[in-house]
Every structure is written in structure tokens, then in C-alpha cells.
């Protein structure tokens, strides 16, 4: 290719990229930059134009706030347990759907329904179903004779984290299924047939062939879900607002920012959330070796 042609292609490439870069600057870089800037100020939300730079004071304040660490603990507990359950369930259902069972097409479509329902709607539905007096869930347990009185699932401090995890598993397992199923379908059928003819037992076929070849797909799914879980807001907020038992780091940042109007501290909390999520992402990418593909 001539130098001039190369230069022209280079210009065209930039031309195609320009709209995207402009949009990214407007919707991502600008707000992020503003948040980062405000986190070093004593600004209040009622009038953000008056502020003074106060260094790292906001970061220190968040760091020394016991409520922040409660939120961090809640977020980590929620993320680890929900992603773990979703991965196992997702793998199981994906393996099932990958077999040639009757009605597979219908099942594949049906499994996506929970994921397609907006989080707020799904949460409200579950909240009603779990209601201690009118909920269908308690009604079922009572008619089966398992419990005598309705349990206040969403009011009990010891149960509410379990409820949040349960609803999240119900909502996002389909996403796991979808990603793992896509990974399963890239494994050539003839390879599994070769193992079958060679007399490899089913458990070893799964453990030594399917699972290693699925590792990249599972890794990507876990990463996506973990990052989603780390910044979870809507589910816990709709169910319990700022309940100390399920407050997440995102809800904490929102409370400081909106409820208490502390733009500076709220921004610092948001920046901490960002750093926390980034740290988890780095650890996961390293641990799951997602930078290397299978077969390398």
C-alpha cells in the first residue's frame, strides 16, 4: 500500500471514530471528571457553584465512616454469594439446554423472561409475593404446614439479605445461562464424540474437556456479573431503601449525595465505589486468566 493511500485510510478511520469519541467524552469522561473534581471540594448540592478545594478530606471522611464499611461488607457479601449461586445454576441450566431435549427452543426463550423484566418491576412483584400477610409465598408455606404464621421476609433484619440475593439470582441467572450456553456451543460435537468413543466416563468428559474449554466463557460471565453486583443499587433500594442490612456502596454514595446534599463527600464516595469496582475487576481478570484464552 502506498504511503498516501495509508494516510487516507487513517483519516477515514478517525472520521468513523469521531462521533463515538465525542459521545464518549460527553456522557462518560465529562461526568466522571466532574465527579472526581467535586470529590476534592466542600460543595453542596443546593448550589454547586460555590466550593473550595479541601484536598483529600472527603476521602478520609468516607474512609472513617462506619456506615461506609457496613455498605462495603454488604456489597461484598451480596456479590460473592449471588454470583457464586448464579454461576452454578447458570452452568447447570446451560448444560441441560445444550442437550437435545424436546422443547429446547421454547425453554431457551422462556429462561430469558426474568432477565427481560425491569428490576424495579421484578422487585415489586417479589416484595408483594413475600408479603407477611398477603404474600403467596407465605400462603404456600402455611398450607403445606411448614410454618404457622407468615414470615416478614423483607422486614426481618436476618432474612432481608437472603431475599435480595434470592431475587437477584432469579433475575440474572438467565444472563449466566446465555453466556455459558454460547460458550458450550463453540465446543465441537465431534470432540465430545471422540471422547465418548474412547470410553472416557461422563464425569471426566465434563471435568477435563467441557469445563476447561468453558473457562473463558464462564470467566467473562462471572466478571460481568461481579461488576454488576458490586455496583448494585436498584434492587436493594426498591426493596429496603437505606436499610442498614442491605445498604450497598452505591446506595451509600446516593444517600450522601442526595439525602444529605453533600456533593463533595458523595463524589468522594462515588470515587471510592469506582476504585473498589476497578480493584475487583483487576483481581478477577488476573484470577480467571481472562487475558489468556483457552488452548494457549
Amino acid at each position, binding site marked *: 500500500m502506498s504511503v498516501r493511500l495509508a494516510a487516507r485510510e487513517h483519516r477515514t478511520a478517525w472520521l468513523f471514530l469521531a462521533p463515538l469519541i465525542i459521545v464518549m467524552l460527553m456522557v462518560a469522561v465529562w461526568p466522571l471528571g466532574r465527579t472526581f473534581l467535586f470529590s476534592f471540594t466542600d460543595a453542596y448540592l443546593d448550589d454547586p457553584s460555590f466550593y473550595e478545594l479541601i484536598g483529600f478530606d472527603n476521602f478520609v471522611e468516607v474512609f472513617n465512616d462506619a456506615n461506609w464499611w457496613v455498605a462495603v461488607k454488604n456489597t461484598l457479601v451480596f456479590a460473592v454469594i449471588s454470583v457464586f449461586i448464579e454461576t452454578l445454576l447458570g452452568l447447570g441450566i446451560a448444560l441441560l439446554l445444550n442437550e437435545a431435549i424436546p422443547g429446547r427452543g421454547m425453554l431457551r426463550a422462556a429462561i430469558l423472561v426474568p432477565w427481560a423484566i425491569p428490576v424495579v418491576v421484578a422487585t415489586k412483584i417479589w416484595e408483594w409475593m413475600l408479603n407477611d400477610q398477603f404474600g403467596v409465598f407465605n400462603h404456600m408455606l402455611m398450607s403445606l404446614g411448614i410454618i404457622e404464621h407468615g414470615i416478614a421476609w423483607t422486614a426481618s433484619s436476618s432474612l432481608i439479605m437472603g431475599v435480595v440475593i434470592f431475587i437477584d439470582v432469579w433475575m440474572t441467572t438467565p444472563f449466566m445461562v446465555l453466556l455459558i450456553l454460547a460458550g458450550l456451543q463453540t465446543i*465441537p460435537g*465431534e*470432540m465430545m*464424540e*471422540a*471422547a*465418548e*468413543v*474412547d*470410553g*472416557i*466416563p461422563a464425569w*471426566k468428559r465434563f471435568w*477435563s*474437556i467441557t469445563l*476447561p*474449554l468453558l473457562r473463558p466463557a464462564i470467566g467473562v460471565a462471572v466478571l460481568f456479573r461481579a461488576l454488576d453486583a458490586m455496583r448494585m443499587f436498584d434492587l436493594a433500594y426498591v426493596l429496603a431503601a437505606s436499610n442498614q442490612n442491605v445498604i450497598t456502596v452505591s446506595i451509600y454514595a446516593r444517600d450522601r449525595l442526595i439525602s444529605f446534599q453533600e456533593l463533595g463527600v458523595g463524589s468522594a464516595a462515588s470515587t471510592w465505589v469506582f476504585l473498589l469496582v476497578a480493584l475487583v475487576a483487576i483481581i478477577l481478570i488476573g484470577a480467571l486468566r481472562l487475558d489468556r484464552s*483457552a*488452548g*494457549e
Partner: protein
Amino acid sequence: MASVTLSSVSKSYGHHTVIQDVDLHIENGEFVVFVGPSGCGKSTLLRIIAGLVPASSGQVLIDGEEVTDVPASKRGVAFVFQSYALYPHMSVARNIGFALETMGLGKPAIADKIGAIARMLKVDHLLDRRPKQLSGGQRQRVAIGRALVREPEIFLFDEPLSNLDSDLRMEMRIEIARLHEDIKTTMVYVTHDQAEAMTLADRIVVLNHGRIEQVGTPLDLYHHPVNRFVAGFIGSPRMNFSDIRSDGTGRTLYGPGGLTLTAERVAGADVPTSIGVRPEALTVVADGEGRLTGILERVEDLGHEHFAYVRLDPETLWVVRVAGRPPYDQKNHRVGLAFADADIFLFEKDGRNIAAARTEIGR
């Protein structure tokens, strides 16, 4: 080592029948090749023997024991795939030895077996590599090694060389033939490559539309095809055919290019409706000589031999295969074609070869 018997085996998917009532016996130690056009069911039949595809009806016997309902993993067969189907995340050594890991052998014993097989297949210098780092030929050797290491009763090959280029294909063909001579295990081999079928097979099975057309030695199929399909399928370039008419008495037959044959009435009322002559049985002679005339349309010079295409009538183009360089100085002129009586094949309306007629034809 084991024999294989298929007894009225059929396979259908819904209303679509892929294998129809196949009976076949493969002797212990025999090398049998399945050939046929694509979609004829040859791969399906192989998979039925392996147990990868269940037969819809009929029985599969290995060494006289019925295995129709025995899963693939318990049949003691080995399967070599066209796609090699190696495990991409394992080294060559582990690919070869993987099946031994659950057989209760110790690690040193497994390593010894892998080493022996790898040396035999000349891949011992590649044991630490991943399949991705190997050439096509090396991958197929590893796949064969993986099959060999279990010392199977029966080897099944599904177009194992189709993904290789022609040089490598010939080399691997010779190696597979040598392998069979060495280990003398029963082998069943599916291919669409005539050269592989003719050179490797003790017997060839010609399949068409899920049915067996003919089973026989390579030369048997070449010289005595039972019908027009087999006659056309075995041999390259394929046999020349043309339709012929009878004069009503059944004694004189006419065809394109001035073809006139006087046939004695053969057993029964068989009336041949088509004639076949192999390209290598024809010679190009001057116009007016020989038994047919046509227009020399095209000559393909391959160096050591050449193909001459002669048009007998608007629908009939015959090919002549001649050793050496073409002596013709021009195209599109009239030539004659000569052939011997013994080289004529006559076919009935339903395609059946009227073999008996061959010796009774005069000019």
C-alpha cells in the same frame, strides 16, 4: 480384533430415511471402505457401527455379539474424524494418553505407551505441543495415535484425509495401509476419494441413497459392476454412457455417433437401453475408422497423459483417456473412436449390468 455384522440396519430421521435395510459382514482383520456420493449415508453407517448414532431398526454385531444397544464408550472401537477432533487445551502427549487415564494404568505405564505410539507415528518430537501448533498431517497422526493407544478391536475412519493437501494425502494413505499390515486390526474407512478406496480396501462397499449397491474387491467393482451406478462411480474419469435404441428385433442396437451393435439375444428378455465404455478403453483414430465418429472438442494435457473430449451428438460427450502427449494438431475436427468388444458394458432400463451380453456382441 473383531468382525462386524450389520443385519437389516435402517436409520431414519422422521420421514427421511438415511440408511435402508443394510446387510453387511466385515471379516476379522479386513479393511473395508465405504464409498458413495455425498448424502448417501456412508458416514451415518460408520457412526451406527461406532454407536454414535443409534440404528432405527436392525442389529449391529461385533464379533458375533449384539451391541445394538451398547453405548459407544463400551464397544471397544476407535474413531478417527475428518476434523481430527483433538482436545485443544491438552498437549499432544495428553491427547494420545487421555483415554488411558481412567483405565487404572500407572503414570509410567501411560508414558511408555504414549512414547511407543508417538515413535511409531513419528510425532515423538511434538509431545509437548498443543494441537494448534501442529500441521494438518501431524494432527491426523496424533488423532490416529489417540485411537491406537487403546488397542481397539475395530478402527473406524471418517474421511480422515479429506482435510489434507494431495501430497500429504498420498503419504498418509500409504502409512494407513502400512498400519493395517502391521496391526491387522479390522478397519472400516469412509472416503469419497477413489484412489484411497481402490488402494486401501480389501473390499469396497458402494452406497447410494442409503442402500448398498455392490460389495466387492476393488478390481471386482471395476471390471464387474452390477449396475450403471457402480460402473459410473468407480473409475476416474467416470465411464462414458449413452442411450441406445433397439431395432425392435432386439438384435441390432443403434446409438449416437453412428453406433451400431449386433447383439445376440441374451438370457431372458433383457433389452439393453444404454451402453458404457471406460475412457481408458477408447482410442482416438482417424475419421471413418473405428466404430464411432464425433467432433474432437477439447484436449486436456496432463503431461503424462491426456483427456480428449469427443462430442457424439448434442447430448453426448465422451472422454478418452490416453497415455502420453496428445498427437492431435487441431480441435473441432471429426475423429473416430475405437474400442474392443470386451470393453463394452450394456445396461438394462433399471440400470442393471447385462454382463452376459458382453461376450456375445459382434460388429
